[in-house]
């Protein structure tokens, strides 16, 4: 019964998944632009953020229309609300990918003060956490959600590691301060990706169990 209802709910989830794939690609393209100092690719990533923002609004409208016309209750309602909340988090992760792309555009003509090792790790981890978090939401997988949220600890460790390293470089050479500061901000933004991915994991648990947990 209520086939249209179930199809529509499923279709909203597929849109959330598509949005997450879009953002994950932007993260990886921003990473490539950083590593290869490719200003053109960085610009593309920056301009593609508009599509992510549009997608967020489109999914929000779909969820609101679904609530208004189908009056979901219980776990159906929680799943729609979880999508509504999760797209906000995905959009913010998209903003951080854009931020990385902006730095890549600036760094295109500069010599890096250090080899980029942990920043790429953070971006890859951010992409993986986003993918797993959204997969957990779409497939209502609480175990995956919990496991994914735990990985935020790795993100925090990388952020601290980068901070220590950059601090040493700044103390060593004043000339390093300008780029190091930008890299510090970037690291901080990338660390926020993990927090937003963990939020999405929290919405998965809310959708499945109806409880708010601090992950």
């Amino acid at each position, binding site marked *: 019964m209520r086939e249209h209802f179930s199809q529509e709910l499923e279709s909203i989830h597929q849109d959330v998944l598509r949005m997450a794939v879009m953002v994950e690609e932007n993260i990886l393209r921003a990473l490539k632009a950083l590593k290869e100092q490719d200003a053109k690719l960085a610009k593309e990533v920056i301009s593609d953020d508009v599509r992510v923002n549009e997608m967020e609004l489109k999914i929000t409208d779909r969820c609101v229309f679904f609530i208004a016309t189908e009056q979901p*209750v*219980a*776990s159906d309602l929680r799943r729609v609300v979880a999508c509504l909340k999760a797209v906000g988090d995905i959009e913010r992760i998209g903003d951080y990918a854009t931020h990385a792309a902006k730095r890549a555009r600036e760094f295109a003509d500069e010599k890096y003060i250090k080899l980029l090792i942990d920043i790429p790790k953070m971006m890859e981890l951010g992409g993986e956490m986003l993918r797993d978090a959204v997969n957990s939401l779409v497939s209502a997988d609480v175990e995956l959600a919990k496991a994914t949220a735990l990985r935020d600890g790795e993100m925090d460790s990388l952020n601290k590691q980068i901070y220590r390293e950059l601090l040493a470089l700044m103390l060593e050479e004043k000339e390093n301060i300008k780029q190091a500061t930008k890299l510090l901000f970037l690291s901080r933004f990338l660390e926020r990706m993990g927090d937003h991915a963990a939020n999405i994991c929290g919405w998965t648990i809310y959708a499945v169990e109806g409880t708010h947990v601090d992950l």
Partner: protein
Amino acid sequence: MTVETAALDISGANIYYGDYLAVKDVSMAFQPREVTALIGPSGCGKSTLLRSLNRMNDLIDGARTEGSFLFHGNSLYDPSVDPVQVRRWIGMVFQKPNPFPKSIFENIAWGARINGFRGDMEELVVTCLQNVALFDEVKDKLHKPAAALSGGQQQRLCIARTLAVKPEIILMDEPTSALDPISTAKIEDLLDELKKSYTIIIVTHNMQQAGRVSDRAGFMLTGVLEEYGPTEKIFFNPANPKTEAYISGRFG
């Protein structure tokens, strides 16, 4: 839940129509000055259960009720209890508005008069009409036939008529299913007001209505009370998968 705090406390209720067991071993306590909604698919026994609460089933041939039905600690089915008195304590409003073929005034006055009311009848009629937010709409035509009112107004008149005999509990069997959305909204607003003074038990097929108006909800299926609890819990995170399947429209 204790007998002392509940407005009505039933336990082990079995209701038969001949050999057919329509309500099976239902136990529930109805809290005072709350709206309790009974929900479930057609034929699940919710109206049968509702009617048993003021002994309306006594009027149906072959209907038989077992179990304990306590009202202030006294059994409603005790042989010494007059069923007519039970229906004064526990009034009922039906699906289709059924005003008497009399004036608006008489619809309210009549029940009170035959129940021995000796006070100011005009004051009683006005108060009851005010309590159902109908007075302003009918004050110039109190002695006109009730049948001339709209369906929604007739239903509010029937509620006013129930109030006139000063019940403690009001049972409502799908009171808005024959009404348009505006009349429905007026009745729902009225329930919010009435529950300040009365205990209300309502059977409804409208899930959104149950969610909006009730404090507690009981879900029934094939005569069994599957789940009973705070409405917020029933509609947001029900414990029983059958409840969830029903309220989300997946069966029934």
